[in-house]
C-alpha cells in the first residue's frame, strides 16, 4: 500500500493515522502537506485526518477543502482511489463535495469525546469488509461539529443505496438517521466521525478500528 496522509495546518490526528497505517501495512505512509499540488506517484490510499484544519475558520473543513492538494484528491477519488476522511477529514469531504450533506455543531452544543457503540450497516465496501454485517463495534469520537445533516431526499437516496457504513447506536450528536459513517456512490470514499485509528492497539482499550485498515489493505495490496 502506498498511502498518503494529507496534513493541513491544524490537523492533529495525522500522526495517529500514520501510526495505524504503519501498524497494518508495515511501512509508513507519505505525509503530504496541503500546499502540494500533486500526490506522490503510485498513491493507492488517501487519508484525511482529524483535527482542526485552519482553526475551523468559516466552517469546519471549509478552508481545507479548497487547499491546493484537494484538487489532486478529488481527481484521485474520481479514478477510484480509496479515500478515508475521519472527523475533520469527514468535514473536509463534505465541504469538497465528495460526500453529500454537511456536518454541523453537535445538537447538544457539547464537545463529545468518548467511546461510542456503532453498528456496521454495510460490510460490502472497500473499508468495511473486515466486519460482519450488523456487527456492533466500539470506536471513540472526539468532535464538536459532528451532527450530520442532509435534506430528506438525499437521506432517502443514500439509505436506499446502502451508503450508510456505520450508524450510532445511541444519541451522540444529533446526526440525521444517526449516521456516523457515509460512503460515496462509487463506494471508494468513506467519511466517518468516529476515529478508527484510535482503536488499533491494546493500549487503546479495544482494536475495533483495526479491521477497517486491515480490510482496506486486503483489497489494495
Amino acid at each position, binding site marked *: 500500500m502506498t498511502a498518503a496522509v494529507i496534513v493541513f495546518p491544524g490537523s492533529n490526528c495525522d500522526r495517529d493515522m500514520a501510526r495505524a497505517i504503519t501498524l497494518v501495512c508495515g511501512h509508513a505512509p507519505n505525509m503530504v502537506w496541503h500546499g502540494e499540488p500533486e500526490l506522490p506517484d503510485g498513491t493507492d490510499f488517501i487519508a484525511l485526518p482529524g483535527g482542526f484544519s485552519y482553526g475551523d475558520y468559516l*466552517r469546519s473543513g471549509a478552508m481545507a477543502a479548497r487547499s491546493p492538494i484537494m484538487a489532486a484528491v478529488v481527481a484521485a477519488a474520481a479514478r477510484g482511489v480509496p479515500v478515508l476522511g475521519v472527523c475533520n477529514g469527514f468535514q473536509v469531504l463534505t465541504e469538497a463535495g465528495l460526500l453529500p450533506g454537511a456536518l454541523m455543531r453537535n445538537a447538544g452544543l457539547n464537545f463529545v469525546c468518548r467511546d461510542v457503540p456503532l453498528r456496521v450497516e454495510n460490510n460490502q465496501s472497500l473499508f468495511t469488509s473486515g466486519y460482519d454485517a450488523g456487527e456492533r463495534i466500539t470506536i471513540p469520537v472526539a468532535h464538536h461539529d459532528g451532527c450530520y445533516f442532509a435534506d430528506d431526499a438525499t437521506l432517502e437516496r443514500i439509505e436506499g443505496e446502502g451508503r450508510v457504513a456505520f450508524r450510532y447506536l445511541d444519541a451522540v450528536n444529533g446526526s440525521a438517521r444517526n449516521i456516523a459513517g457515509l460512503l460515496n456512490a462509487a463506494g471508494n470514499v468513506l467519511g466517518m466521525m468516529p476515529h478508527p485509528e484510535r482503536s488499533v492497539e491494546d493500549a487503546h482499550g479495544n482494536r475495533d478500528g483495526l479491521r477497517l485498515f486491515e480490510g482496506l489493505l486486503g483489497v489494495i495490496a
Partner: protein
Amino acid sequence: MKVDIFVTLKPGVLDPQGRAIQHALSGLGFAGVEDVRAGRFIELELADSVNEADVRAMCEQLLANTVIENYRIVGFGAG
C-alpha cells in the same frame, strides 16, 4: 467598494446555537424572544472591477455552504 454578505441557515436546519442564545436571553429576563437564528456577517472591500456575479460565485464556492446556508449580498446598487 464595500459589500456586505449575510450567511444564514436555511429554514428547517436545526440551529442549536440559536436556541442556546434564546435560552440565555430568557435567562437575562428578556421576555418574548420567540426564536433566534444565528448566522455570519462578512464584509468584503472590493476593487471596482469586481461585479455582483463574481461575489455570487465567491458565496457559492466558499463563503456559504449552500447545503445548509442561504446568503444575501448587499452593496451593489439596490442590493
